[in-house]
């Protein structure tokens, strides 16, 4: 990364307005061959817009874009791609019923006389997959048969196989559990070593700290500052992203559980992967379920909540025995928030309707007619309580990820659940929204709600939980009680 060289891509005072919303306000940026730039900023700070300008997905409304020092105007992402700029979007974009190979080489398959050269295609696909560590994937299977993690890696493999000079990864790790996200790091390092310029957008600051040569921070559509390699620390990044006050304090350890009533008690609980889980959870506790991907974290959560049927053992929830259906769970005061907001939101319904859906019967006249005034009042009150920003009458899809998550959690707060089960509640959410959700969960616990969080990030468990069960291969391998540290969680995750 010799700075005297010409930057591969440079922006000069770029502006971008969407109607009256100014998404970029005079941003200048440059990246050199072989450089890894970590791009940080809160949701809505303008990171995605900036990358869309660079990759030709949207045209700037002011300023200029230079490639190799020459001004360019991309009318279409194809033109950016021809100039060697590839973007891996935040959302998965695979065609599910097409083979992995077809997805990888869509629109550029090796052909002769109009016929696809299948052997060649498979060979190239295997090579592309090997690059991201997916050696064991058969390129002829449909993309739908891959796990979400593998699909994510395939989209990255697709971009890499185009051999771009500039590779933009927009939150590549957001939907990945921490241990899989770590698999991306050597790939990115080797790309940079080969001279590829990489723009790496992430909310996971630890990743950026490990990977980036330079940090480029955005705030409110402006360039908020840079950090050189030796200046990159998590504190410094947090400072740039949104000021010093937002650094999250580790939770105070509250020792009330010994005499608190038992909310969940299980004995020998088992499902398809989980086995012999003995748990005792108390009122007002924040319990973490840690462990590697595939260790049974999520399944244990679902078994407690009656979302998934159990195959062995017994569990008592709130003194009423086991829960057999989600309907029964809701009636008993148990709320479940699945991983991924798409599993939880009603995209065609308003923010208000999304946050009242679980209690719509309770707030209706004669349990039949929706009391629209009451609904609005409750939705407005809870939005304020969880500090959610957005139009209550607009479809929920107009909210940012963090606010959508808050609207979904609101549903259970309004319902007044006594036990709240959350699977990866802060995946894909920026540091501030994440701190906001942590704060909310702490307040709820203080009011007596029992909270169980399945989470792949040891840092988050340390920050949030009073007690953590670490899963290994379906069994509870360790129970850690605060104060514990990241190293203990990691060590327990790899124990046999």
């Amino acid at each position: 990364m010799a700075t005297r060289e010409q930057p591969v891509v440079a922006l000069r005072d770029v502006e971008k307005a969407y109607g009256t919303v100014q998404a970029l306000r005079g941003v200048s940026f440059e990246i050199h061959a072989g450089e890894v730039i970590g791009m940080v900023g809160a949701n809505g700070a303008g990171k995605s817009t900036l990358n869309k300008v660079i990759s030709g997905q949207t045209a700037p409304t002011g300023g200029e874009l230079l490639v190799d020092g020459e001004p360019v105007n991309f009318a279409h992402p194809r033109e950016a791609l021809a100039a060697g700029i590839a973007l891996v979007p935040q959302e998965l974009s695979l065609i599910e019923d097409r083979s992995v190979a077809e997805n990888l080489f869509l629109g550029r398959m090796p052909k002769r006389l109009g016929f696809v050269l299948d052997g060649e295609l498979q060979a190239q696909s295997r090579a592309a997959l090997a690059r991201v560590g997916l050696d064991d994937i058969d390129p002829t299977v449909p993309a739908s048969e891959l796990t979400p993690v593998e699909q994510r890696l395939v989209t990255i493999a697709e971009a890499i196989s185009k051999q771009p000079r500039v590779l933009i990864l927009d939150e590549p790790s957001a939907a990945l559990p921490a241990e899989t996200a770590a698999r991306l790091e050597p790939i990115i390092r080797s790309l940079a070593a080969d001279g590829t310029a990489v723009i790496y957008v992430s909310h996971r600051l630890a990743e950026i700290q490990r990977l980036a040569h330079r940090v480029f921070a955005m705030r409110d559509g402006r360039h908020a500052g840079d950090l050189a390699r030796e200046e990159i620390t998590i504190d410094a990044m947090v400072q740039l992203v949104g000021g010093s006050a937002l650094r999250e304090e580790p939770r105070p350890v509250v020792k009330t559980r010994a005499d608190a009533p038992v909310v969940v008690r299980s004995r020998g609980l088992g499902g398809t992967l989980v086995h012999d889980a003995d748990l005792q959870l108390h009122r007002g506790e924040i319990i973490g379920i840690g462990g590697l991907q595939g260790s049974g974290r999520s399944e244990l959560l679902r078994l407690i909540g009656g979302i998934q049927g159990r195959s062995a053992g017994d569990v008592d929830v709130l003194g009423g025995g086991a829960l057999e259906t989600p309907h029964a769970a809701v009636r008993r005061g148990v709320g479940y928030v699945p991983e991924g907001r798409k599993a939880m939101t009603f995209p065609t319904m308003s923010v208000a309707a999304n946050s009242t859906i679980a209690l719509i019967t309770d707030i209706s006249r004669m349990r039949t007619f929706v009391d629209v005034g009451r609904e609005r009042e409750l939705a407005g009150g809870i939005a304020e309580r969880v500090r959610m920003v957005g139009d209550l009458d607009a479809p929920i899809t107009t909210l940012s990820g963090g606010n959508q998550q808050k609207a979904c959690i609101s549903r259970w707060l309004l319902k007044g659940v006594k036990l709240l089960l959350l699977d990866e509640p802060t995946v894909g959410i920026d540091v501030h929204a994440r701190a906001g959700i942590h704060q909310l969960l702490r307040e709820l616990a203080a009011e007596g709600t029992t909270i169980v969080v399945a989470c792949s990030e040891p840092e988050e468990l340390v920050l949030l939980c009073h007690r953590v069960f670490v899963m290994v291969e379906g069994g509870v391998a360790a129970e850690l009680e605060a104060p514990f540290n990241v190293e203990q969680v990691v060590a327990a995750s790899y124990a046999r």
Partner: protein
Amino acid sequence: MTDQAHKATSLTEPASPTSANAPEPQRPDGARTGMAFGRHWIQRYATLVGFAIMVAAFWIAEPAVFGTLDNMRSILELAAPILILAAGLTVVLSNGEFDLSFPGLIGLSAVVGVQLMSDHGANAAVAIVGALAVGLAGGLVAGFLVSLQRASSFIVTLALQTVFTGIALGLSGGGSTIADVTEGYISVTFNRVLGVPLPIVYAAVIVLAAFVLMRFTVFGRQTLAIGSNPGAARLAGIRVGQTRMWGFVVMGLCAGIAAVILSSQTGQFSPDLAGGLFIPPFVAAFFGISVLAAGRFNVFGTTVGALFVATLQTGLTIVGADSYLANIVIGAVLIVILFVAAQSRTQA
């Protein structure tokens, strides 16, 4: 609480662009300012403008016939059974389900109602109750089978269509016309209230009821949630299978009401009673998705859609189009509307 409520209303105002939490714009591609406004307008009003152009075209072609009050009344009268069926269908479609069995159920309800009079000497009231009961029962059967979640409602109701039609043929002795209905039964649709034919009154009542059901009741809200994301609905504690089943019961009742109106209007049961009523309710419901860019099935849009399809059918008749041509046109219109609806759904 009033303080909270007051603050809540301020949340509805658009966040200022300078707010740190301003959501990132959702679909930032291409030029958005002037053109985007144009596109937005087109999406809201395209199908309504199409409707208006069609009315204008028929009016210009046959001003002496099409523009008369009598013609308006006959369009509405033709629209009545379509409106009723489309309203029921909207409930089922909003659940994310399909119903292809209602034409068969109309035949079955009608034959039971008419035979109660012809073979058992029942009066009109008993016949009507009988027909409606059959409609309800048929909807319950369809809903129950669908709620078992062993097969898609598309296939289940396709099979039931054949079953219902078969039973109706069997009951009517191989599908002969039964014309022996009471005068009271005829008067159920023949009379007028303040000059408005009764079928139009019934349709208005049903449409209003369906609107209230979908917009203002817990059932309607839960139905919308299931249609929007069935998995999330289940997690929110909604009984998905049960709610879907009641949707089919609503549809079945609507089929029963349509059966009474149709057999009363014609004064008989005939095997082709529901002929021509299979496609129009679907046209109406899918038209409704695009009205004002609603992006989902809704009773108001469906109502506009039903009026659209009835106007189209009447207009084609007035300009002297052959019935085969009308079939082709309505089928083609459904395809166009499906495309437009798909567009407004992805954009919503």
